[in-house]
């Protein structure tokens, strides 16, 4: 491995993970070069430093859903450009190309270790997983379906926040998703919120924070203010783990931080509490 590392260093240096198509990848945590196959087998967790790299929505669904059980819903709900916002149409095209998805959120039903659930997963490659009207609508519909079928719902967030390009309408998705979450809450339908890297701003300050159980992946960036804004506003010096999953755990906002390889099993154990007995 060392040999490969030396041989390929110059070519690899500075390349983001997802741009690398060959046998080697560079860890975003420790900057070490890893065998792509080991890395993939390890669920994109660095075997050296434990850094959890982002998963696409499809990868996460594969991680959590029992094989061949995921049935997508609401795939036809996609973004419009209600404000005629500069460059938005382009960004949407790029988002579709980058992610291979029609929208930044994939939702549907599946079983998780045999337990039927509704599962919704955000994809960072589509405009940073940002929440516009379509994402809000898909979250709302997924929750409504969970409510109607009385199925537990698991939502994996991965988002920079509300989607600026839809202005106030994106902001209102915070209220909309929390409105349906309120119905779930009143009806006693279990809702597990999984926070992955990153879960920020308007997503964290809405549906992602009101789960019955809030699970996070190690090292995930989780916070309200963008790093720039947060740093400008600092009177108090931020601690080294500021806005990480571990920081949020310490401050009482997250129930449990779960390494990716235990995520499915842990979700199963939590789901059993709600559905079993």
């Amino acid at each position, binding site marked *: 491995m060392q040999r490969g590392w030396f041989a390929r260093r110059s070519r690899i240096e500075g390349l983001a993970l997802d741009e690398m198509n060959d046998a080697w990848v560079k860890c975003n945590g420790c900057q070490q070069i890893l065998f792509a196959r080991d890395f993939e087998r390890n669920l994109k967790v660095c075997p050296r430093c434990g850094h959890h790299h982002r998963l696409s929505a499809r990868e996460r669904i594969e991680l959590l859903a029992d094989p061949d059980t995921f049935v997508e819903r609401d795939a*036809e*709900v*996609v*973004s*419009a450009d209600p*404000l005629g*916002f*500069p*460059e938005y149409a382009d960004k949407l095209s790029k988002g579709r190309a980058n992610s291979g998805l029609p929208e930044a959120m994939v939702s549907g039903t599946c079983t998780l270790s045999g337990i039927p659930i509704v599962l919704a997963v955000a994809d960072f490659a589509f405009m940073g997983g940002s929440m516009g*009207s*379509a994402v*809000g*609508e898909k979250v*709302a519909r997924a929750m409504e379906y969970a409510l109607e079928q009385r199925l537990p719902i698991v939502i994996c967030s991965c988002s920079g926040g*509300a989607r*600026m390009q*839809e*202005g*106030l*309408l994106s*902001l*209102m*998705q*915070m*209220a*909309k998703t*929390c*409105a*349906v*979450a*309120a*119905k779930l*809450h*009143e009806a006693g339908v279990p809702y597990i919120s999984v926070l992955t890297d990153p879960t920020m*701003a*308007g997503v*964290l*300050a*809405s*549906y*992602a*924070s*009101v789960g019955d159980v809030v699970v996070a992946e190690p090292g995930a960036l989780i*916070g*309200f*203010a963008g790093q720039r*804004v*947060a740093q*400008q*506003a*600092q009177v*108090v*010096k*931020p*601690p080294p783990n*500021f*806005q990480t999953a571990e*920081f949020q755990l310490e*401050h009482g*906002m997250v129930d449990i931080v779960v390494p990716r390889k235990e995520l499915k099993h842990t979700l199963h154990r939590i789901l059993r509490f709600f559905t079993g007995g």
Partner: protein
Amino acid sequence: MRTILDFEKPIAELDANIEALKRITAEQGIDKSDEIAALERDRERLLREIFRNLTPWDRTLLARHPQRPYTLDYIRAIFDDFIELHGDRQFGDDGAIVGGMAWLNEKPVVVIGQQKGRDLKERQRRNFGMAKPEGYRKALRLMHLAEKFGRPVITFVDTPAADPGVESESRGISEAIARNLREMIMLRVPIVSVVIGEGGSGGALGIAVADRVLMQEHAIYSVIPPEGCAAILWRDPKRAPEAAEALKLTAHDALRFGVVDEVLEEPLGGAHRDPLAAAQTVKEALLRHLPPLQKLSVSKLRESRYERYRNLGMWQIATE
């Protein structure tokens, strides 16, 4: 010191001239009423002209105008016997959100609002109207008090944003806002929100989930400040005026998107030129919107509030 916006300068000159003439009349007993009347007509014409052509950025500046009436100004002008209540019963009392019991004519209500400061000291104490988690939690506590005793809730929205600092992050600013969104949707009493200045993103929304959202003519409501938007879009915060245009952050935009139910006219030249008249308009709107809401059954009330938010957004169905 009074702030005068660039586009207010010609008006300020006329203001000064009119003042001077009035002073002469008062001090020297010389009748200047014809001249005054003429200048006042000029001023009115000028105001109408300037305010007919306001850009979204002009409105942003008006919404942030340091002389613009703030929540406590409206509370004083609109309600009888405001008893301010303090604290979230958990951590602290946030000066950026005020709230308490008050009377709207003959009816007891709970009033809550974001409060900016007038002078430097008050600004700091009130954190420039940027609420911390304890502010949102105080607000929620007071809403639950209102709910328990069947009193309607009125909120005044005026904040650049929720506080983005380390301490707010540590105490769960996201959780506090999210919880308010979830709880306000289900509150068993009517809620009317009035956006009176800056409707700054989630920080504003955290007290603005309501049965009726009213918005003053020159207030703004936006997912991101224009400066921040310009910085992201063009790496240049100075292009904020363009971003303000793009963001569709004016009251009439909000009305068009269904986010707001009514735009409240302001006195010519903006609320700060006649705070009492502005307050009177708000009061009349409250008195118009509250009684029909109070007549609804709790389930009807909650269901229509739910539908109001459930239906917000514009998306499309992919065909293919």
